[in-house]
Structures are given as structure tokens and as C-alpha cells.
């Protein structure tokens, strides 16, 4: 009788017993995405923390799956609330990338919609419209901006409720096919959730976006200028600090968006100043530098409340 050593048989589908966490994270691309999130987005501490938590959970969940441990597909629907210009849309786009990297959405496309894309004009128009959008979003992320407009409490014959019902059904039944992210301004989202109790409980992650501090706004402005190839002179930087303090107290202030608009207007004024004197030689430094006069010409310094609107640039 032959003595065949049984120890040589190797299981092909052997479950690994140890996992290199760093390698796993890099393979999923989340270290890179999280790093980007940290680098490119200023402030937003609680948001970043929550996003990191979600990414970690997803990573661990994926490893657990491969290790053959009990794992349940986590509910990933999210709601982003916060004041205008606090970066909700930007973070939503990043979130889609993370989810795709970890394989929790299959395709990773982001379909960004508002009320108009979901709700129809007449009877029988809403359901096909909503379903059309849902079909497109399958395997990716459906981002609903200003979600509270779906619900119109003052109009009984509004079709928004129908869209909400279809949405809720798909959110519940096809959790592995679709991740829904709702975004909107804080207070209105609260009343929206109050009128649709089912919605709130079906969303696992409620993330609040805080306002930016003055230092963060200044940093954002400098970052924007650097991206466009400009920089503040020391005096201009100081006057922009004052600009932020004044602008924050005025109506229609919308955080980073206001700063972006201000930066655009400052560039206009700088260009105007340079062109006003055609007889001089321009140097590279002239093209790059923002002078205090470019900042101080803003109506914020003279006008006060609502002055930005008077210049024709709307800040919603």
C-alpha cells in the first residue's frame, strides 16, 4: 500500500487568516481619497471625521466579507445639512468615489437631481420621471439637492409626495443597487424630515456641515487665488480679513460661495486697474498681485447690508 501524505492537499478557496490593513486600504483607494479630502477641503472637522468613520466601516466590512465572517450590507443613504456654501455637493462627489473604491456601489456614477427632474407636471407624469432617474442612478449615487422642495405642504395636489413614495420604496428594497444622498439647508431639511417620518429613519448617516470660521474663509480665498495664479499682497491680505468680518454680518452670506464670488470680483477690479493705465510696462508680479485697492473698492466696506446685491452679483 502506498503511503500518500494527506498533508499535501491544499484548499484552493482558503480563507486568509490575516489581512494587511494598509494594503487593503490602498487597494480600495481610500487612503488617497481621504488624503485629498483632508488637503482640498478646509475646516469641516465633524464632516471629515464622519466620512472617515464611514470609510473605515466599509473597509472593515469588506474584509469581514472576505474572511467569511457575518457581514450585512450597511445602509448607506445619507443626508447632508448645512448653510449655503459649506461644501455639501463637493463632499457628496467625494463620497461617491469612496463608495465606488470600496465596491459598495458598482459603477460609481453620480446623478445629481433637483425637484424638477423627479416631479412631473400632471397626473401620471411623476412616476415615469422618477423611475427614469432611478434607473440611471442604479449602481451609483443619487444626489438630491434641496430635497425639501420635493414636499410642498401648502399644495395638496402636488405630485412631490408621489416621487417621495417611489424613492422611499427603492431606497428600502434596492439598498445594494443605489445610494441616495439628500442635501439641503439645515432648518428646511428638519421640517422636511418632520413631514416624512419614513425618510429620516431610512437614512443612516445624518451629517451636519458647520459654517466656516473667519480664518478658514481667508484660507479658502488664498487657496482659490493660488489656483488661479494670483496672490494677495500683505496689505491686501489684511484688508480681505476685514472684508470677511464685514461680509459675514451681511445678508445673503453663503460661506465659501461668497468668498469665491468676492475673489472673482477682486480679479475684475485688478484687471480694470491694470488696464486703466495703458502706458506702463507690466511685469509678472503686477499680473499676479492683488493690491489692497482691489479689495477695498468693494461696496461691503461702504454700503453695508445687501450692498453686494446692488452690484448685480446675487449671492443666494
Amino acid at each position, binding site marked *: 500500500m502506498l503511503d500518500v501524505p494527506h498533508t499535501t492537499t491544499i484548499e484552493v478557496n482558503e480563507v486568509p487568516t490575516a489581512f494587511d490593513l494598509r494594503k487593503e486600504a490602498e487597494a480600495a483607494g481610500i487612503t488617497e481619497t481621504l488624503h485629498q479630502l483632508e488637503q482640498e477641503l478646509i475646516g469641516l472637522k465633524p464632516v471629515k471625521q464622519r466620512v472617515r468613520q464611514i470609510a473605515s466601516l466599509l473597509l472593515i466590512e469588506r474584509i469581514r466579507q472576505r474572511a467569511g465572517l457575518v457581514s450585512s450590507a450597511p445602509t448607506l443613504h445619507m443626508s447632508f445639512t448645512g448653510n449655503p456654501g459649506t461644501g455639501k455637493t463637493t463632499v457628496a462627489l467625494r463620497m461617491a468615489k469612496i463608495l465606488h473604491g470600496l465596491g459598495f456601489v458598482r459603477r460609481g456614477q453620480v446623478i445629481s437631481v433637483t425637484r424638477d427632474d423627479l416631479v412631473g407636471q400632471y397626473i401620471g407624469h411623476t412616476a*415615469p420621471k422618477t*423611475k427614469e432617474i*432611478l*434607473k440611471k442612478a*442604479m*449602481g*451609483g449615487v443619487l444626489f438630491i439637492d434641496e430635497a425639501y422642495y420635493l414636499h410642498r405642504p401648502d399644495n395638496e395636489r402636488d405630485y412631490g409626495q408621489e416621487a417621495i413614495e417611489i424613492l422611499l420604496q427603492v431606497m428600502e428594497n434596492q439598498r445594494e*443597487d443605489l445610494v441616495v444622498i439628500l442635501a439641503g439647508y439645515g432648518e428646511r431639511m428638519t421640517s422636511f424630515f418632520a413631514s416624512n417620518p419614513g425618510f429620516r429613519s431610512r437614512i443612516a448617516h445624518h451629517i451636519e456641515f458647520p459654517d466656516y470660521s473667519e480664518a478658514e474663509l481667508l484660507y479658502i480665498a488664498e487657496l482659490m487665488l493660488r489656483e488661479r495664479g494670483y496672490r494677495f499682497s500683505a496689505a491686501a491680505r489684511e484688508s480681505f480679513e476685514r472684508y470677511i468680518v464685514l461680509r459675514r454680518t451681511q445678508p445673503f452670506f453663503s460661506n465659501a460661495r461668497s468668498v469665491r464670488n468676492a475673489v472673482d470680483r477682486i480679479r475684475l477690479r485688478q484687471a480694470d486697474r491694470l488696464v486703466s493705465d495703458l502706458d506702463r510696462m507690466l511685469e509678472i508680479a503686477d499680473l499676479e498681485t492683488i493690491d489692497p485697492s482691489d479689495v477695498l473698492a468693494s461696496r461691503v466696506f461702504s454700503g453695508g447690508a445687501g450692498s453686494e446685491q446692488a452690484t448685480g452679483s446675487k449671492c443666494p
Partner: protein
Amino acid sequence: MKLTQGCFSFLPDLSDEQITKQVQYCLSKGWAVNIEFTDDPHPRNTYWEMWGLPMFDLADAAGVMMELAECRRVYGDRYIRVSGFDSSHGWESVRISFLVNRPAKEAEFELVRQEMAVRSVRYTTVHRQPRPASS
């Protein structure tokens, strides 16, 4: 009589998982996926009724499968097929089409031979209503 029509017609019926993979293949090629149904599966009947609109711009087959489930719920007793239409220049035609649903009791066809003048013979495929189970 098991109706054979379109692609994969001599294979056993595709499972939902296999259908999903075929649809995903169509989507990856950029074809518009359509769901059609009929109660008259005669081979000459090319005009099946459409379930909704052709599905452009989808990324994932789950959307098509959702519509298919809905179509099966309503027209589960009919033939349903999925087709992929390639709209790219030079093709502009259906590239794939396969059955995804057939009724419990299938249609029956009969070949009718007709003697014509000068010994010519004309053949016609006639659609018969399925016979009752007893016969």
C-alpha cells in the same frame, strides 16, 4: 412547443443573473436596451409592443431588471424579450435580442402545405391556439 427566437434560443432559458449579465454587456457597449412583449410570437411578427421607452444612458443593469420585474408582473402570461439597439453610425440596428419570459402554456405553430398551379407548393406557418391539456 418551446419557442426558439433571438439569441441563445437553443440554450435553456436564461436565469435572472444571466439576463443581468447580458444586459450589462449591452450597456457597456452603449446600446439602448428595450423591453418588449407580445401575445403573438409568430416569427413574421416583428412589431412587439414596447414596455416603456428605450433605456438610454443607464450605467447599471439593475435599472433594466427593475423594469423587467414590473413588466413580468403585468404581462407575465406573454412573451417578453430584451433587445439592445446600437445607434452608432453604420449600425443603427438591433444588435442583440433574446427572450426573457414565456407563458406557462406556449404557442403552437403548424406548417400548412398548399398545392398551387404547375406543381408549385406554398408553405405557411399558422399560429394555433394551445390545445387543452387533456388531448
